[in-house]
């Protein structure tokens, strides 16, 4: 019987080792899975832009092929419409932004070549038009953002990691080199826009996650340095900052920015909220879908969504909406 006692102790020890969730911290925010869930549009490294009440999502990589189909998601109807396919070669790692009432997609990787072509989508005509090639070197893994009447493509990988920033003027269909990001060459960074400012963080270069964090002001057309997203200061505010990584999804709602999932060495479900008022980050409820990289985040009518992405070569198609100030409910 003394052996039995030993085995019972062993069993209890293994039970204790397995029960992990009871002591974990809970954070604010609720993820809601949009129904119906369907895996058919599954892909990673898609590109997107938002016009009115619709998010346009397309291109990307399904694990076998690079894609050129494009879909419009209507947040009011919670329905997708298959729109005109992207007019350029199929690709992944492209970037997209909206300027005014038109959408733009450019750069990326077709499986062989890094790309610098650039296209405009007109939702009223449901038609694509090729525009002036991106002014920088052909690349993938850049970030893009629209501020007022201009669009910007910055950073990315062209064979080397880049820190440059290019401005597109749709009125003249031309590119101008804008002020480069101050430092922190990178690819697969995350960007979100609040007001007339674009925030760029995360990303990777030389197998190192980049922790520099910058904001680009669309009025002054210049970058400013924000607090690093790592625990590097002597103050305590950043003691918990542990979310440096790449391939995260991002969006901005309610005047705050959100960084979701991505890879931090291994895949992460972590969600962090950025408050531009005090330049501070707060951890929120973990992403409720599978942890993933190459997902697409977008905000439409001040609602934030994360779609698509990939984990262990399994591309996802599911879509989740985040309610940052709601209590977490795992059953919705």
């Amino acid at each position, binding site marked *: 019987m003394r052996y039995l006692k030993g085995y019972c102790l062993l*069993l209890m020890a293994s039970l204790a080792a397995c029960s992990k969730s009871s002591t974990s911290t809970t954070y604010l925010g609720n993820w809601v899975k949009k129904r119906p869930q369907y895996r058919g549009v599954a892909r990673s490294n898609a590109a997107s832009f938002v016009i009115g009440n619709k998010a346009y999502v397309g291109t990307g990589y399904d694990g076998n092929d690079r894609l050129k189909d494009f*879909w419009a998601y209507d947040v009011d109807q919670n329905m997708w419409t*298959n729109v005109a396919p992207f007019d350029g070669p199929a690709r992944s790692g492209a970037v997209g932004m909206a300027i005014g009432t038109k959408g733009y997609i450019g750069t990326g990787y077709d499986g062989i070549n890094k790309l610098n072509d650039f296209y405009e989508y007109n939702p009223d005509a449901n038609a694509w038009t090729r525009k002036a090639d991106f002014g920088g070197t052909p690349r993938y893994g850049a970030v893009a953002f629209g501020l007022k009447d201009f669009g910007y493509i910055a950073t990315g990988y062209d064979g080397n990691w880049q820190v440059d920033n290019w401005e597109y003027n749709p009125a003249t269909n031309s590119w101008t080199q804008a002020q480069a990001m101050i430092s922190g060459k990178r690819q697969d960074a995350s960007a979100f826009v609040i007001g007339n400012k674009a925030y760029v963080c995360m990303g990777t270069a030389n197998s190192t996650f980049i922790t520099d964090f910058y904001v680009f002001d669309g009025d002054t057309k210049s970058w400013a340095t924000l607090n690093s997203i790592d625990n590097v200061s002597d103050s305590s505010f950043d003691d918990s900052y542990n979310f440096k990584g790449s391939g995260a999804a991002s969006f901005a709602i309610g005047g705050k920015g959100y960084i979701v999932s991505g890879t931090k060495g291994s895949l992460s479900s972590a969600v962090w909220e950025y408050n531009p008022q005090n330049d501070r980050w707060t951890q929120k409820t973990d992403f409720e879908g599978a942890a993933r990289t190459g997902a697409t985040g977008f905000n439409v009518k001040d609602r934030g969504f994360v779609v698509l992405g990939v984990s262990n070569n399994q591309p996802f198609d599911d879509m989740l909406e985040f309610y940052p100030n709601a209590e977490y409910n795992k059953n919705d």
Partner: protein
Amino acid sequence: MTKRNKIIIGVGAALICLIGLCWLPGKESDDNRQPVAQVAPFEVDGGWGYKIILDGQPFIYQNIIPGVPGKHVFKTRENAVKVGQRVAEKIVHNEMPSISREELLAMHITDFQ
């Protein structure tokens, strides 16, 4: 080692394995289930479009012909249903539900030309 001890070790190991299995993150049971997709044609802009109802919920709203530029509608209800059924088939087989110009032409759909 006595026979009794072997039995205890065996039972203990089996219990631990069982508990371990129960602790694995539950994979969503409906992951590999075949979805039910229905086509619902509707009149729009003097022609026809379709909705795809997936597991009882509207999922695709196609008020324009998919896969081609421009805002074209299907000229007949039959054409809308034909393309909608092709999309529904793809969904049931877990294929990409996108339609290309080539697929439209193969189905003799020329309403956009």
